[in-house]
């Protein structure tokens, strides 16, 4: 695993998130569920807890955008870059952007599974960089996994617990 150089971690364990808009590829309930489960992947192994808000500025602002979306990192149309997220800091830090030129899916192995892409991006939102371990969730390339049996790979557990420690409730 790898962490961002510098002090890129949240100084609090209670974080908020907000879904600013939706992709037309899935129902809103499916997007909500995918995002919630993607954050829970990290909450399961750390003291971090996530609360959804529907207005105002959240620590993690989530949006579906295309091409140039005014953050200096334009998306590139279908395939290529699927999403990106910023490490923890004030303002845009923690925010996750998904390329809405992609086809996102809820359960199907075709297209890109939103839960898997989001879980990876939220690793960045919390302070993890890309891992060189091809089996890690934080590996940069998209790899489909069975989401019904998904378990956070050990490399990612080690990385996030290096930043935040283990879940005290387990």
């Amino acid at each position, binding site marked *: 695993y790898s962490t961002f150089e510098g002090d890129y971690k949240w100084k609090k364990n209670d974080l908020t998130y907000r879904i600013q808009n939706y992709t037309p590829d899935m129902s809103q309930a499916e997007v909500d569920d995918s995002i919630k489960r993607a954050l829970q992947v990290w909450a399961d192994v750390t003291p971090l807890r996530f609360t959804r808000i529907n207005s105002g500025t959240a620590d993690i602002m989530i949006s579906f955008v295309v091409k140039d979306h005014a953050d200096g990192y334009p*998306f590139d149309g279908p395939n290529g870059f699927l999403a990106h997220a910023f490490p923890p800091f004030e303002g845009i830090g923690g925010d996750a952007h998904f*390329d809405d030129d992609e086809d996102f899916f809820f359960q199907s192995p075709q297209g*890109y599974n939103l839960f898997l892409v989001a879980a990876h991006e939220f690793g*960045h939102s919390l302070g993890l*960089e890309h891992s060189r371990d091809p089996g890690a969730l934080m590996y940069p390339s998209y790899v489909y996994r069975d989401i019904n049996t998904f378990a956070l790979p050990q490399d990612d557990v080690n990385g996030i617990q290096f930043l935040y420690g283990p879940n005290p409730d387990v």
Partner: protein
Amino acid sequence: SPIDKDQEKIAMNYLTKLYGLQKQDHNSKLKSSSALSLHLKEMQEFFGLEVTGKLNEETLNVMKKPRCGVPDVAA
């Protein structure tokens, strides 16, 4: 098979966005080719490919895979 101009463009774009390659200085071909090789080596090492510093089919195949847009190395 030989790498054509379009493939080279894909590689330059990939390395500029993800590996800190500066926009190429067209007046300094030598400088740009050594920078390209350096960043290619970095990318090949990250993905566990054979580290040659040269653009080949295997490296291009990795570059064409769908992925996250966050750089692999600190810029």
